[in-house]
């Protein structure tokens, strides 16, 4: 009996293992999908690897985001029988063994857990193992991580927290748009519908259909400080905002010593891909801070982003600026006047006694309408609540 021989009847088992790995990577796959996958295997046959792959992809993947992970996991599971070759290569001292292909973090994680396909052992030890895995994220850990400062996490904790941050929802405030929609609780008559219905009923008016203005989320402008002191927060906030504002109109810019538009990177579906692209785009990651100069660049080249005093501006910075203060003063003044709400997200608020003393911080505090903390998961969750309250408050007076 050869390894991987289909006649041994391992295939169904392997398929389920594959499905479970996909599920671990976050693809929504239920039992009925698995049944469908097996059916499609039978229909397509196993002669052609690429046909099988296409078939499984059509059945199991339902989001563009998941395609990358699927491809990598498929390649990992249904490998060419080249493994033998690789082993041979390892035996030869002068020949360098081909390294494992680089995989995306999601695929790696899904593979890192024990693949159930290998479960020839009795069932029990395996389930125990799985329980252990779950225990890694027990309630107390979660509680600790919720309140831990981002800057004080170990590398692995940081990764975990970054994952968790992606799950936090961020409902943005809405404003009344120009268009109308029918609504039972509307404040004006829907004349079109009223006449239509009257026409159907031979001119009788039996009900008064109403309509109201449609609600639309505020456009969002995000300015992220990527200087050395902010590096960790910036990365995490980018990951968080990327997922939380997925369906909204948003524009994103990073600034350190210069301004970098990030909207191209934000069009990526996968957050890990987005971060990779962001890294490639930002030339001054972890460098100095010149907020004034960067904002002036924004003012000159991208001022259309904040047209109509409707934009919600989030500036993520610690306010430790090394640039020209009068320039910063002018630019902040302009920006805060253009925006509906100008919110300063400040990681330094983790200190109880924090007061904006540095020159840049003073100006930011003067012009921002709100200052909110973002140094741990707990504060990110509160951020969502604080932003919703934005529109219910009257607009602050400008100085």
């Amino acid at each position, binding site marked *: 009996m050869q390894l991987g021989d289909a006649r041994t009847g391992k295939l169904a088992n392997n398929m389920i293992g594959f499905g479970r790995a996909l599920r671990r990577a976050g693809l*929504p796959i*239920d039992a*009925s*999908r698995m049944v*469908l996958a097996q*059916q*499609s295997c039978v*229909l*397509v046959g196993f002669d052609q690897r*690429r*046909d099988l*792959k*296409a*078939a499984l*992809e*059509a*059945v199991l*993947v*339902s*989001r*563009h985001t998941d*395609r990358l992970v699927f491809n990598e996991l498929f390649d990992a599971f249904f490998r060419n029988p080249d493994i033998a070759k690789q082993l041979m290569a390892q035996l030869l001292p002068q020949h360098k063994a081909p390294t494992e292909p680089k995989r995306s973090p999601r695929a790696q994680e899904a593979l890192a857990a024990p693949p159930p396909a290998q479960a020839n052992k009795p069932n029990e030890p395996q389930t125990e193992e799985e329980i252990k895995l779950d225990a890694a994220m027990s309630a107390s850990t979660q509680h600790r991580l919720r309140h831990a400062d981002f800057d004080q996490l170990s590398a692995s904790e940081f990764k975990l927290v970054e994952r968790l941050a992606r799950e936090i929802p961020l409902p943005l405030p809405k404003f009344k748009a120009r268009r109308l929609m029918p609504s039972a609780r509307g404040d004006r008559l829907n004349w079109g519908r009223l006449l239509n219905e009257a*026409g*159907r009923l*031979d001119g009788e008016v039996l009900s008064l259909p109403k309509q109201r203005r449609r609600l639309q989320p505020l456009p969002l402008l995000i300015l992220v400080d990527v200087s050395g002191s902010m590096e960790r927060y910036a990365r995490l906030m980018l990951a968080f905002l990327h997922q939380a504002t*997925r*369906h909204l109109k948003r524009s994103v810019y990073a600034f350190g010593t210069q301004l970098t538009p990030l909207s*191209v*990177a934000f069009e990526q579906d996968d957050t890990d891909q987005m971060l990779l*692209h962001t890294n*490639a*785009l930002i030339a001054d990651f972890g460098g100095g801070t010149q907020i004034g100069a960067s904002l002036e660049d924004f003012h000159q080249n991208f001022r259309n982003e904040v047209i109509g005093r409707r934009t919600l501006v989030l500036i993520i910075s610690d306010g430790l600026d090394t640039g020209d203060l009068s320039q910063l003063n002018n630019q902040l003044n302009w920006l805060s006047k253009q925006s509906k709400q100008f919110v300063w997200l400040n990681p330094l608020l983790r200190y109880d006694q924090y007061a904006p003393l540095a020159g840049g911080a003073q100006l930011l505090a003067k012009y921002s309408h709100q200052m909110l903390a973002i140094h741990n998961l707990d504060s990110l969750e509160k951020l969502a609540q604080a932003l919703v309250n934005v529109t219910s408050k009257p607009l602050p007076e400008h100085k």
Partner: protein
Amino acid sequence: MQSFESVGYFPDRRLATAVYLAQALNRPLLLEGEPGVGKTELAKVLAQITSRSLIRLQCYDGLEQREALYEWNYAAQLIHMRAAQAERNAEQIEQEVYQSKYLIRRPLLRALETPAPGAVLLIDEIDRADEPFEAFLLEYLGEYQVSIPEMGTVRAQHQPITILTSNRTRDLSDAIKRRCLYHWVDYPERDRELAIVQNRVPELSAQLSEQVTQFIERLRLQPIANAFTRSPGIAESIEWAKALVALNTLELDPEIVQSTAGVIFKQRDDVAALEPLISDLLAPADAN
């Protein structure tokens, strides 16, 4: 696959497999992808190959059941009622008024009633319709039957092959994705695009169409730093090829690229970003 190519559509193997499975498993097929990669075209071609009739439902914001499924012809009913008022009683009139001749059939109902071999139902740009409509569609795609209170249930005689397309302006609900097979339509690789361009614009010389596809492919492969807001799709390549024919072009040079840039890109920023790249994109092509 060959039957696809015989009508001038060049799918890759993945897409052909997905279409085959959709037919074999009787599932709707959800196509997503960038604009202009031939999602809608697939449905048209599929109808041609299977000699079924194509029924298209274009989705838009605010699409309602009565525009997608059926609607009573109220005006005609009203006239009939008025005319019959004197002679018949209410019950008779009611019976007469709810007849199939007063029913205006919209695409989804028509797809069910199409005689053998059935229809190809194209539900285009479903992401434009709102979520309640999606929920309604869910029921329809699950059972392929519709109940009209006044007339009874209409069941599909021959199940339509259903193709849904989406441009991903928003995410579709998981429920509808569960019903469907999913396929992401990619930009075609160069050989396939070459075949498409040559098939669609046969007037274009072989050498030039090769240049065109190479140029477009390089455009799409631009690194993210100077990526354009929107990469050109196949539709744009074909348009561009036609434009070049119209201008009697013999060979691509920077000047002609610049003057026809408006065909490839529809945004001022993109056209501007193209300018410094043109010579780079063209140069190695000449070396070949």
